[in-house]
């Protein structure tokens, strides 16, 4: 079938599905196009002529992508980007198809896409990006992604001898290892973190040398296997960091860091919580500098960024407030604990664990979460399709909790239990977050719920 016809059909399917009220039409066009014309992604790659940035990694893709778009958008030339969740090949296709005119030509001149780790090889081969960002690799939905070393091996194979600018987290040993042998690689990292690793953070996966397999020696671990390290056998060490952060303060809603690169320096005051967002910002800064932007301009553009969809987003309901914190894997969950739930945090807590495909069917990961370090919350409500598994985990961490298996009931009860003027924290897995936001949309103003 001719390409232009496929694009028309895909556009038509999007319109139809919206007309029929079957969702927002974001996955269907890509699905249709994928079926009818394999290789369509390459067709768009050709049009974009390398003016593509791909962001991948386990945690932080959405926020980093938004930061990069904010830093690169200067008014001349539209940047195409995908919405949270549309980061599989079909999501990229849908985004691209929606941007074409009736002759199949893209309106945008460049694209910044977040890409699911498993879809990255195909996206890289088809779109031939001029820059790539790899944020981190943590254990995540092993039933979907497989083991980390296997995943890293696939990423290394597809990067091959690429001439693209490859921006890597130098503080993640496995990610740093991906840069070996590449001609155009830049590293970001933190010299100081201003936070202490949780005592029960055991979710370190890449704590052995990627070259010889011996245990890495850490000068300091910030969380999981992120930190300053070297191999005891001198086979591998943390690379020279090109964009260095020194974080002096991390709070529930902000952070303060000094950024240095070459002779340039800047203060970075983020309106986003936690150390993980400092890493996201460092990644965005590094790629934007490579694109020719000034450090001081980049910092200006990203520092006022509000949180993305379900990432520390605040919803007001009358005099009560809800804060949504997506939890997808042990390291992400531990980051939420490290940021919000130590040192006597008093907010009521609703945790929702689902086991649909997008969440991962396997809920074993709950046992890698440092629930033992949770300190403060007076009330915890456990819910989700695997509420009982969550409740068991909480029981064995000696935490007091209530169980509310039905998700809508749980949310309703939770909101009612928050004292007026206070904030409740909601920690949902991916599909649970979608459900919560849909339910909240009926009673409050939430941001764009489309995916």
């Amino acid at each position, binding site marked *: 079938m001719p390409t232009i016809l496929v694009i028309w059909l895909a556009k038509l399917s999007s319109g139809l599905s919206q007309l029929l009220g079957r969702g927002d039409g974001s996955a269907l066009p890509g699905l249709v196009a994928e079926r009818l014309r394999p290789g369509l992604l390459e067709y768009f790659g050709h049009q974009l002529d390398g003016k593509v940035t791909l962001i991948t990694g386990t945690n932080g893709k959405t926020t980093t992508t938004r930061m990069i778009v904010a830093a690169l958008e200067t008014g001349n030339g539209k940047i195409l980007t995908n919405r949270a969740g549309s980061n599989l090949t079909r999501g990229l296709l849908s985004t691209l198809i929606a941007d074409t005119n009736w002759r199949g030509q893209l309106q945008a001149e460049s694209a910044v896409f977040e890409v699911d780790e498993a879809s990255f090889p195909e996206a890289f081969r088809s779109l031939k990006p001029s820059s790539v960002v790899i944020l981190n690799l943590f254990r995540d939905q092993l039933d979907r992604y497989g083991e980390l070393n296997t995943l890293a091996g696939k990423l290394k194979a597809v990067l091959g001898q690429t001439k693209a600018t490859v921006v890597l987290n130098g503080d993640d040993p496995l990610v740093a290892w991906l840069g070996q042998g590449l001609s155009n690689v830049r590293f970001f990292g933190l010299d100081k973190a201003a936070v202490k690793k949780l005592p029960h953070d055991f979710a370190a996966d890449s704590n052995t040398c990627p070259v010889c397999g011996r245990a890495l020696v850490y000068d300091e671990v910030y969380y999981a296997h992120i930190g300053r390290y070297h191999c005891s056998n001198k086979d591998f060490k943390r690379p020279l960091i090109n964009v260095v952060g020194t974080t002096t303060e991390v709070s529930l809603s902000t952070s303060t860091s000094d950024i240095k690169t070459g002779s340039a320096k800047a203060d970075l005051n983020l309106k986003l919580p936690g150390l993980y967002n400092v890493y996201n910002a460092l990644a965005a800064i590094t790629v934007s500098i490579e694109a020719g932007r000034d450090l001081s301009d980049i910092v200006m553009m990203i520092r006022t960024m509000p949180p993305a969809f379900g990432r520390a987003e605040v919803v007001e309901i009358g005099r009560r407030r809800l804060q949504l914190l997506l939890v997808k894997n042990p390291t992400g969950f531990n980051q939420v604990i490290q940021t919000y739930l130590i040192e006597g945090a008093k907010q009521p807590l609703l945790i929702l664990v689902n086991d649909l495909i997008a969440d991962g069917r396997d809920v074993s990961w709950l046992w890698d979460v440092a629930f033992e370090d949770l300190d403060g919350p007076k009330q915890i409500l456990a819910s989700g399709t695997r509420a009982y598994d969550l409740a068991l985990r909480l029981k064995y*961490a000696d935490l007091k909790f209530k169980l509310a298996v039905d998700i809508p009931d749980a949310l309703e009860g939770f909101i009612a239990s928050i004292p007026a003027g206070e904030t409740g924290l909601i920690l949902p897995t991916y599909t649970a977050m979608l459900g919560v936001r849909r339910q909240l949309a009926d009673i409050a103003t939430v941001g764009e719920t489309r995916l």
Partner: protein
Amino acid sequence: MKPLRIAYLYPAEMNIYGDRGNVIVLEQRCRWRGIRTQIDEIHLGQDYDFAKADIVFGGGGQDMGQELVANDLMKRRRGLVAAAEDGLPMLLICGLYQLFGRRFVTAEGRELPGIGLFGAETVAGSTRMIGNIVTDTPFGRLVGFENHSGQTRLDETQAALGTIVLGAGNDGTSGKEGALRHNAIGTYLHGPILPKNPNLADFLIETALRRRSPNCELRGLDDTLEHQAADLAAKLNR
């Protein structure tokens, strides 16, 4: 009473599916009964006398870690096999279950030696067996999740841990899951098998205590939540 010593094999290399959860469960179910515990983490190259342990536990890891672990484990072979023959309760999951058999052939065709406690051999297959799993065993119906490419064949003389109700188990075709020898249990129910299967956790604890004083009886705990979680998991689809 001296604390119950739980030997935890290779916590750094063999812990990707929440395996530590099993240690948490053993510790807590002892603590709730007033039994003190001590966790002996056993790392690569570290000396350890298994005759002093009360329970041995080991989990699954990434393939890369498995080779280092296999070589280290072989140096402990005599001590481990002797301890198992003496009735020491052991729980070996996924990667370490494979290495407690005679050998493991990796996807690249490399052969890793095993300590041969179980009469079993494992060959890495091309497809992963992933999903919820239910198996009937002498310890009751066990529920969990499996995610492995290794296909394990048991010798005719080697008893399986259980028969498959849902899932693949040892090799996806024999209808058998795991292996059982003396008080050593090997299984593919990965990561945290013990939280939803408290009978198995208590078997390990009670066996350990009876090796010290034969008439020891374990006090029951309120396992309502454990059984609710297990019943629900047993109804899940693959």
